[in-house]
């Protein structure tokens, strides 16, 4: 028979075992969010395709046609879409998982389960959207007759990177939001601002060399470059230093995010 000890500050021991016990809840909460999202809409799941398509069209027109940015020999829509995939995933994961704890406050104050499940499920929900957009990217690549090179082998690494970064940011913001609702206003701003300092609508080669390092401090630079390089092939330039910076930063973000979340988690029910 299982024995459980509840003590001030000593819940740690049980934590990982509980996380395993509640593993199915990751799926159920993500499933709920997906089921609910498009209820009573006419277009339904279509929205998760329409949104990226429209954004892609706008970015292509603004940066490719009007801004006449270099495309590196790649059709501009493809270039934009490759940048948008990780960016939209990150931004929606941050917004959704940032809000997730507050949105589920009824659950938090009435049932026990590892709270990390809530924040992570929202990231998983965003990941499903990401996969749908991936399907659209594949279709677009076929349309343009692009065949991926061997760089594709690195693609899973970059997906893992963006997933971890999203989760890390998500955990931070979700935990902070419980106490400081100010983040409800800060997050949309960060997301909007982030779009301009990340190479979503353009290539990172556009940035002057002396600012490259500063630019690369944004982890999304390494990640987006990585996406383009691994999906669209070798003629695209990749700064490995940006990728290295992104890796280090991501590790730091997810590590510290987990630490902060764990530290504050036990008081969520009291504060929320």
């Amino acid at each position: 028979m299982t024995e459980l000890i509840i003590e001030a500050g000593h819940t740690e021991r049980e934590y990982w075992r509980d996380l395993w016990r509640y593993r199915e809840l990751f799926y159920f909460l993500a499933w709920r969010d997906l089921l609910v999202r498009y209820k009573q809409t006419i277009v339904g799941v279509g929205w998760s395709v329409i949104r990226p398509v429209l954004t892609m069209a706008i970015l292509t027109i603004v940066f490719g046609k009007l801004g006449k940015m270099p495309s590196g020999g790649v059709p501009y829509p493809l270039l934009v879409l490759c940048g948008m995939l990780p960016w939209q995933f990150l931004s929606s994961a941050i917004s959704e998982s940032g809000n997730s704890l507050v949105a589920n406050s009824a659950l938090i104050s009435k049932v026990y389960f590892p709270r990390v499940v809530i924040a992570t499920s929202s990231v998983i929900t965003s990941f499903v959207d990401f996969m749908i957009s991936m399907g659209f990217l594949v279709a677009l690549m076929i349309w343009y007759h692009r065949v991926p090179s061997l760089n594709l082998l690195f693609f899973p690494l970059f997906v893992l990177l963006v997933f971890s970064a999203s989760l890390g940011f998500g955990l931070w913001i979700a935990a902070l939001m419980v106490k400081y609702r100010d983040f409800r206003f800060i997050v949309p701003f960060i997301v909007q601002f982030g779009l301009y300092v990340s190479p979503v609508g353009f290539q990172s080669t556009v940035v002057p060399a002396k600012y490259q390092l500063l630019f690369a401090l944004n982890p999304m630079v390494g990640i987006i470059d990585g996406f383009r390089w691994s999906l669209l092939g070798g003629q695209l330039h990749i700064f490995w230093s940006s990728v290295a910076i992104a890796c280090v930063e991501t590790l730091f973000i997810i590590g510290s995010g987990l630490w902060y979340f764990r530290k504050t988690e036990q008081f969520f029910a009291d504060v929320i």
Partner: protein
Amino acid sequence: MSQTAISIEGLGKCYRVGRQQAKGDGLRHAMEAVLRSPVAWIRKRREQSSKEEDFWALRNISAIIPEGDVVGVLGRNGAGKSTLLKVLSRITVPTEGRIKLHGRVASLLEVGTGFHQELTGRENIFLNGAILGMTRAEIIRKFDEIVAFSEIEQFIDTPVKRYSSGMYVRLAFAVAAHLEPEILIVDEVLAVGDTAFQKKCLGKMGSFAASGRTVLFVSHNIEAIRTLCKRAIWLRDGSLMMDGEISSVVDEYSKSLFSEEVPSWDNPDYGICLNKLALKNGRGELTNHFVPGEDLRVEISFQARKRVNRPRFAIGIVGANGSCFTSNMLLDGKFPEYLEGEGTLTCLFKAIPLLPQTYTLKMAVRDETIKDFIFPYKDVTSFNVTGDLAEYGYEGEYVNWASRSTPVVIPYEWHLPDGRREAVSLNRSVRAISNVPHQVQEPSLELDAMQ
């Protein structure tokens, strides 16, 4: 029985209240303070944490609950019942002390936690089950049972937002009832739903307990606790008042409810204070135990510093099953022209037709405009009706169910096809008059017509 299911040692839970919260805990304050002067901020933070008032929702709670015990938790609002359950179900961590739990724990602090309005009944069963800690395989296995228990087969694929509140509660309890933990923690979930379903829930909990599992049960329904539990814990202001055999704890608890005087119900705007409320029986003795059919006197002592014109008093008696009867000056119009100085106002309920149960007395006073309350509705006190129903001619097999039945019984008669007439009344004197002996069989006109 010998093994311990829950052991609680010196448990305490402290909440911070006061300054910090009053000032606002927003990010702006935090950032502003850091930016202005980091050193002062650190110093202030230290001071602040000591200046904040500590509120101990629970303190020094120790108890050992053996496996298979069904324990009721009693206490007034704010006594710490919910906090205890929250700590036990790991929703919040204790500040001091420790708890050892042997076995899988399921807690039911609310019916339908995590239900989503947009999802169908079927989808919600899965979602709610998973949230309560069931595995997918378990839910699939018990799915049919859950649906059958909830009695909503036809609506299983309808979004729950279209459910009536009764259906909603039934479905929610059905899911929870099919958890199979070794320890079940239940909070006031039976306060919702209709009577028939409440009985079904109580039955389910009873059988759960009968199968040797441990149950911790909080309810305001003392009778429900009395029927279900063998043992009770009584909390008051965060500390353990009493822990022991059910009937002794319930008796002490009910006594305390009575002895605690109405906490000086004062309204400075009207300059009136209700300083005492006394319940007396037919012989004028102060008590909170009554027998069926006895007179109940409610004596309200007031002190009016100003003249209060035409106040409307209203008293309601509420049983386990809902409101029973009322005396209300808004209805009868028999209000006093004014209250001034000290005095007493009494309402005498004659021959209360109540079955043995625990009742709450609630009261309100409105001012002469009728629109405003001088004292809004509030549960003021409670009393028990006790007595052996056999003395009143009750001889059914399920006479014990009276504690959960509709409480009011007015004199009635059965006219049976064989010509027998049986009169039932909770008022012994009334019964003596109207009771028709079995031997005297006078076929009534109605019976003639039928034959």
